[in-house]
């Protein structure tokens, strides 16, 4: 347990005062000054001792995985346990990322749950290294630092915004799908009518109210429900716009927003990057957390060499699915990639960063598909 103690400005000031008093006491008429000095020294000593005790007594739980969303407060809490009998005040938990949280007072033999106050504005997975606590317990004359041995991660999920889902294709009947077909089935939510009972119809679909009229048995019918498929391709390239913001982050945010809106409409989605190294597939009833974790873990290409030289196998994408391309950097290479990945007879849409508003390549993209969108930090709009 590494503990370091440093005097604060107030502590240094009090020590300076002590020195002044000492000089004064040398010339003093009385020895009472020494008693007085002793009190000040006692206060300093108490602060020193209890600062160390306070720092030693604290244990933190829940640092292994902290979850938050870009620009929003944390969703998870940190549990702080004070094992000493004395209360500890003014505790700050720090890491190499900055101040995580601070506690004003924890009573002796007590537990406190704290939501970290830090706000992260860029999604990703951050390693919590060099964790340390700082206390000014109890008088604030010394800052006591204690290095913590814990290591953890902070997962910052992308901040999603409402967006219109890209057009889907490859519709297949699916209960709960938002697209209605022309045929009727026995399953579904949208009641379309009744028909006479035929042999083989399950008994539970009998419409008892209609059957009670005495004209034979009738069964309920519903409109057929369909859901489509969308394949998202994201270009993972670092790009900084004129406002020094990472465009890749915006691209991931746009991808997340589009993916969730597609899932909300009951479509199945597939996500992959241009190099196919990050493949993900989700059905409409898939858990949100897993998608968010996938999006959070997306990193730019330059950090991920292609599996140490081995070619990555192309995942088996759905052939009927529509395609949505989200670009983080618009250049000729990117346009070529989009062209290569596109297949005919499918609905396509391309999402381009806002910074390329006036780029000439836009026309070329529009030639590929008219379904082109710009995306900013928190919105999408059609070109």
């Amino acid at each position, binding site marked *: 347990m590494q503990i370091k103690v440093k005097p604060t400005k*107030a502590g240094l000031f009090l020590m300076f005062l002590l020195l002044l008093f000492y000089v004064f006491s040398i010339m003093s008429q009385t020895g009472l000054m020494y008693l*007085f000095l*002793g*009190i000040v020294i*006692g206060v300093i000593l108490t602060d020193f001792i209890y600062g160390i005790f306070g720092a030693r007594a604290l244990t933190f739980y829940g640092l292994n995985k902290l979850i938050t969303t870009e620009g929003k407060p944390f969703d998870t809490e940190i549990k702080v346990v004070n094992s000493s009998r*004395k209360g500890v*005040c003014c505790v700050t938990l720090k890491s190499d990322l900055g101040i995580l949280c601070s506690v004003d007072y924890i009573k002796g033999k007590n537990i406190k749950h704290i939501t970290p106050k830090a706000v992260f504005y860029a999604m990703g997975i951050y390693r919590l290294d060099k964790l340390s606590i700082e206390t000014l317990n*109890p008088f*604030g004359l010394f800052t006591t630092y204690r290095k913590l041995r814990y290591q953890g991660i902070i997962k910052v999920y992308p901040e999603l915004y409402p967006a219109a889902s890209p057009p889907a294709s490859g519709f297949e009947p699916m209960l709960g799908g938002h697209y209605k077909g022309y045929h009727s089935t026995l399953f579904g939510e949208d009641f379309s009518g009744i028909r006479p009972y035929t042999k083989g119809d399950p008994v539970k679909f009998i419409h008892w109210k209609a059957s009670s009229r005495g004209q034979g048995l009738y069964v309920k019918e519903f409109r057929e429900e369909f859901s489509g498929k969308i394949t998202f391709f994201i270009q993972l390239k670092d790009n900084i716009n004129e406002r020094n913001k990472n465009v890749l982050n915006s691209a991931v945010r746009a991808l997340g927003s589009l993916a969730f809106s597609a899932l909300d409409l009951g479509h199945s989605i597939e996500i992959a990057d241009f190099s196919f190294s990050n493949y993900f597939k989700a059905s409409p009833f898939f858990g949100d957390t897993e998608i968010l974790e996938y999006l959070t873990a997306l990193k730019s290409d330059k950090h991920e060499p292609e599996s140490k030289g081995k070619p990555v196998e192309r995942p088996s994408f759905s052939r009927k699915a529509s395609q949505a391309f989200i670009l983080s950097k618009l250049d000729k290479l990117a346009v070529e990639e989009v062209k290569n990945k596109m297949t005919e007879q499918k609905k396509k849409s391309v999402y381009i960063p806002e910074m390329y508003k006036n780029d000439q390549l836009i026309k070329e993209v529009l030639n590929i598909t008219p379904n082109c969108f710009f995306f900013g930090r928190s919105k999408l709009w059609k070109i």
Partner: protein
Amino acid sequence: MENLKSPLNILILIGLICQGMTWDTYYLLFVYCLLWLLLCSLNLNRKFFGDLSEFFLILTFLIFFYLFIGDNLFEKCMGLGNALAVLQLLRMTYRLDYRRKIFTLAIALTQIAIGAQVFLNYMFAAVLILTIILVPKILFQINYREASVDNINPIKFKFLKHKIEYLIIFSSAILFFLLFPRINFESNTRFYSNFGNIQKKPVYFTKPELKTSNESASEEDSKNNVILFQVYADSLMYFKSFSMDKFDGDLWSISYYGYLCVDKYTKNENLMDYIYRKVNVRYSNFNSKFLPVDGKVEYIEGNFFDNPFLTRIGNIIIHENVPRKNKNYEYWIRRKKNIPALSDRTFKRLTKTGGISEKLKKWLLNLTKNTKDKYEKAQAVCSYLNSNFKYELGAPKLKEKNPVENFIFKEKRGHCGRFASALAVLLRALDIPAKVAVGYMAKEKNNFGNYYNIRIKDSHAWTEAYFRDRGWINMDATPADEAALDFQKIKEPLYKRLYDYIEYIWYSKIVNLTYGDQLIFIKDIGRLIKMAGIFINRIFLYILLILGILSFSGLVFFGIKKNKFTLHWRKRKKQNIKHFYDRLLRILEKYSIKKPDNLTPYEFLDYLYKNNVNNYDDINFITDIFCRIKYGMKRINENEMDRIENIIESIGKFYSANGAISDEKSNKKFE
């Protein structure tokens, strides 16, 4: 009300009171308190001056107080505190931030420190206690409020909940006070004197004189009980202020040599080897330039003088007796007496009688005819005066011409000065160098504190005589008198002595704890540790023996009472039982019945029952006994032990002959 209760405001008030007390009158104190009360009750939150205006205002006050208040640096420092008091009051008009709060605390502490110079009585104890309680509270509150987000239910630093913290602070104050080395600057008195008026060379101030023919002592003085000095000493008798060596027939005075410096004291010796004396000057108007001491002083220092020096005739003179409160000095004297040699010139000077008559010479020869040496002669003269003369205050004047002769042959009565003068003259007539010493006779010892009270009525004069083989010796010719020279120590009532002792402790050991006191304290601690070490070393074996006997008897007593000694036996039994149970398990294992680890003994018993194991009742008995002893902490008797032994044996034999499983199910695979 909240403002009145605020620890910071209370400390500000204490600081203001301390500051107000530095003035001779109570007006300022009253004004400060009134303003404090007003500002607390108004609870203002309005800044009347900007930061810069505030700074210049306080600067103006500081300059004003420095220039126009006080005569010396000490008084000017006191005056500066008043400017800080104005700042404190100003800061009570608005909410303070962290930095300002710390600064306000520092100012309050400074003012209390200034108060420590003024409150020399017990009142300061209350100030100290309040400071001990308030300072941690304030610092905690300032720190906590800085860190906390909401102050809805602020946590307070309560005295009863933080006893250990307060104990640390209190102990540290005491330890620091006792052990931190006191360093006195050589020029510390400059702080209290009027700038640079200290003269480095001795000046001839009003010379002390003693006229033999006159009766100088008054009855008023002899009854004056005012305490002049309190002297810390194991034994003390003659406390000499100065000696007079020059005699012109009637008048004793100090010669040129009495002012001539022979030694400037320097602190370069190991003072632990010398006898330590500490003198508290309780009489505030003490302004003499002669320092009263007893014995040959090796080193002397005090808080109201600089550069004391020893003169050729043994007087200790100071350059300036700085007027200040709470004067004290300490000195160290040799344990062994030093016998100085006198030069012929000095010898001649100190044996000048100023002319005595033939009649007196003959009388003197007659008185000392049966003596062998000079010391005996001196003793004879002294005892003659002691026994045949009478001590009397207000005795008639002696003739100015040959007053000694007049005193010896005619008057035969008088005060101490007259006896001292007569003896000195008579000794000088016998070729014995002699001086008249003036000082005090210590009579009143307070046994609680091992110190002497010296009062005005203890003033005394005696004679110092020189003998080649004995050095300078005090000889007192004054006859014992109930009023003046009662050598038996005066016994005052217990409560008075106790009160006096408390006062002495406060002034001598707390207000005036000096380097010498610290040396004694350390020496005492060292001595105590040494004594304790020797004592323990001597009786170490006995202590060990006694402790051994005590612990053994205690063990036996409690062991018998609580059946502790059966524990081992029970353990052994338990082990035996375990051993039996293990044996049983081993036998069963031999016949492919293995106890699974996750089964308790009773569950295993059930398991055996289901599988129809032979000798089930016996196994049940052993299991029952085993659980009863292992988990129920029950005892096992001898019969049960024998029975278990027999059962185990019989099970073993039975199994070897018939197998573990009964015939009916022997074909079934054991599960």
